[in-house]
């Protein structure tokens, strides 16, 4: 059978298709169909010819097979140092073979590649730091995912995720109406407690345009309210766009580059339309990676930069604390030992380790580093889409042990995780291993600690 009903090479293009695919619970039929899916070797060969150039070809060719990358990979370490988890082995036995055979591979091989690309690499990019030749296997696995995706070989949830972006311009089914309703609802809900609180939509020429993760309006609308409260406290002139507010990109995890481009362009269009002085994204790692770091390239921007300065939420918080826009009540600082999760996507891959440490210096009395940390930190265990794929839940749970042990070693019971994926992984590791920890984004903690200026206080009864 060349093409399945659900598992095929055609991307999702309508709500009906998306709902039908979602109806295939757990992807039961989807994965059965994948076993029969044809492999178009010529198309793969052409794709490799066009896109596998100097950098990746050289990486594959000069890999000295020295194994220095092994210890850098948390999945290798956590899986009892299984040699099959050595990054160089994982990439050579998948992408390496695919290139060597010029795409003349079997369905079984492709499915093996799917397993390796989505359950044995979270694209955390740590291995590239430990390879003498600078071979970044995370980059190559992301590239491999794109090739697999082009042939319809992609985990069920990933196809749904990128389908969401294609249909709703968001990773979840949040329509423009839903979004605007949520903004209005949250502003109303919290206005009583915070007089004058607004969530301004489509305000032109504001100082800040705020973008976020669709999970927030969908499942955690209070996160949006918290962002609004903090901007309100800091006296910022800010706005959210009515369209182009979704900063995430599950399509990046899926390797669906066309959907990545569509998604990021919706944000860039909003920036161009509203002309904010700068854009601030929510506490999410991959959203930052997608829209600030990789996005400019998907959108074909030659300078590699978004249309306006675009910073991560932690950069704004560090700045607000530094300049006194938000003041912390010393009495309310976190007294207990607290540790911090470094998100690979904006710490290793965008140099923001300093910003989060600066924040900790203002809000925590006993901040304890995990080891290793900063650029060298390990992935939370659920990055790159790993958290979301049911088929690999067992492997993901095993992977969480790395972060569990890192957290336990700090002796902290509170973990600050300014990243949705990390936050999820840490929540899941507590659920799985019950080590008695709590985890939090920055926003709720900051609101509890911030000094409310007199003019923003509730009038005395």
């Amino acid at each position, binding site marked *: 059978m060349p093409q399945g009903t659900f598992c095929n090479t055609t991307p999702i293009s309508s709500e009906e298709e998306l709902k039908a695919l979602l109806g295939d619970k757990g992807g039961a039929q989807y994965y059965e169909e994948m076993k029969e899916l044809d492999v178009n070797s010529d198309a793969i060969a052409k794709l490799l010819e066009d896109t596998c150039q100097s*950098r990746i070809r050289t990486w594959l060719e*000069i890999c000295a097979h*020295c194994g220095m990358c092994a210890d850098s990979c948390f999945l290798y370490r956590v899986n009892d140092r299984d040699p099959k988890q050595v990054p*160089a082995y994982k990439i050579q036995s998948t992408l390496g073979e695919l290139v060597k055979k010029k795409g003349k591979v079997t369905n079984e091989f492709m499915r093996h590649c799917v397993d390796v690309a989505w359950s044995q690499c979270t694209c955390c990019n740590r291995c590239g730091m430990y390879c003498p030749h600078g071979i970044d296997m995370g980059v190559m696995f992301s590239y491999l995912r794109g090739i697999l995706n082009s042939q319809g070989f992609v985990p069920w949830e990933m196809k749904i995720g990128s389908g969401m972006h294609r249909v709703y311009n968001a990773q979840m089914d949040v329509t423009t109406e839903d979004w605007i309703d949520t903004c209005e609802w949250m502003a109303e809900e919290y206005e009583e407690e915070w007089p004058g609180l607004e969530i301004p939509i489509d305000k032109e020429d504001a100082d800040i345009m705020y973008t976020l993760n669709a999970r927030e309006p969908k499942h955690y609308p209070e996160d949006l309210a918290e962002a609004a409260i903090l901007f309100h406290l800091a006296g910022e002139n800010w706005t959210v766009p009515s369209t182009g507010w979704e900063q995430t990109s599950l399509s990046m995890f899926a390797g669906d580059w066309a959907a990545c481009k569509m998604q990021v362009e919706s944000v860039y269009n909003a920036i161009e339309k509203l002309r904010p002085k700068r854009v601030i994204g929510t506490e999410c790692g991959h959203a930052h990676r997608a829209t600030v770091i*990789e996005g400019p*390239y998907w959108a074909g921007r030659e300078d*590699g930069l978004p249309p306006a300065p675009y910073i991560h939420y932690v950069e704004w918080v560090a700045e607000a604390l530094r300049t006194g826009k938000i003041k912390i009540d010393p009495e309310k600082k976190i007294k207990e030992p607290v540790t911090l999760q470094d998100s690979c996507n904006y710490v290793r891959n*965008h140099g*923001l380790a300093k910003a989060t440490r600066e924040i900790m210096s203002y809000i925590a009395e006993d901040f304890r580093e995990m080891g290793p940390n900063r650029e060298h930190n390990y992935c939370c265990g659920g990055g790159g889409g790993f958290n979301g794929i049911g088929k690999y839940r067992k492997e993901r749970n095993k992977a969480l042990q790395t972060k569990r042990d890192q957290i336990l070693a700090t002796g902290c019971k509170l973990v600050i995780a300014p990243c949705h994926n990390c936050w999820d992984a840490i929540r899941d590791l507590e659920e799985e291993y019950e080590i008695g920890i709590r985890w939090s984004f920055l926003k709720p903690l900051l609101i509890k600690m911030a000094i409310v200026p007199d003019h923003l206080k509730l009038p005395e009864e």
Partner: protein
Amino acid sequence: MIAFLTGPMLWVSLLVFFGGLTVRAVLYVRGLSWKLDRVAYKPHMALGMRGAIHSIRCWLIPGGTYGWRQQPFMAVGFFLFHIGAILLPLFLLAHQELIKMAFGFSLPTLPSGVADALTVLAIIGGFMLAIRRIALPEVRILTTPYDWFILGISVAPFVTGFIARLHLGNYDFWLTCHILTGEAVLILAPFTKLSHIVLFFMSRGQLGMDYNIKRGGAKRETAFPW
């Protein structure tokens, strides 16, 4: 035989080596693409070059990176072998004699005691790299006959040269072996993994540029902590 090998054959070998590696370097750079690599090389060239140089420099210093510090056995084997592999071919007295014959001038030479020590250390380094391939499961799984060939052909000139230097057995035989294996390395370099002689600098430099241009270079106070 030796006259031919140190005459025309040496010229051919050197030409293939330098010509071939230059071509590899040029092709590498020409094949880079800001769109495919997702690195805006040109608009941020100065920042990128700083990252490239930092990235290369760190890895050339023993203990200069987390990777080297975490794997001292590998680091020692690597540096022992590579220091010899760079200094000996260039500055050995006997090699300089060849240059003098050809060009009428020569570079400074290594004192023979130092050269001997470097040779022995390079052989030990090569041996250590071989031990890793056998002893460590994470290296064993990656190792192919091709890797053994590359390691063998790279260490061979040191072993044969040293045997000749000590006049063990038939001098002419070992000298011939030394020249043959040495020239084999030169000729094979552009076409095999030995191309890392230049491609290391390209690849390492590229990732340095990548991190400095795109992955937070401007946000970090100091360069990327390799």
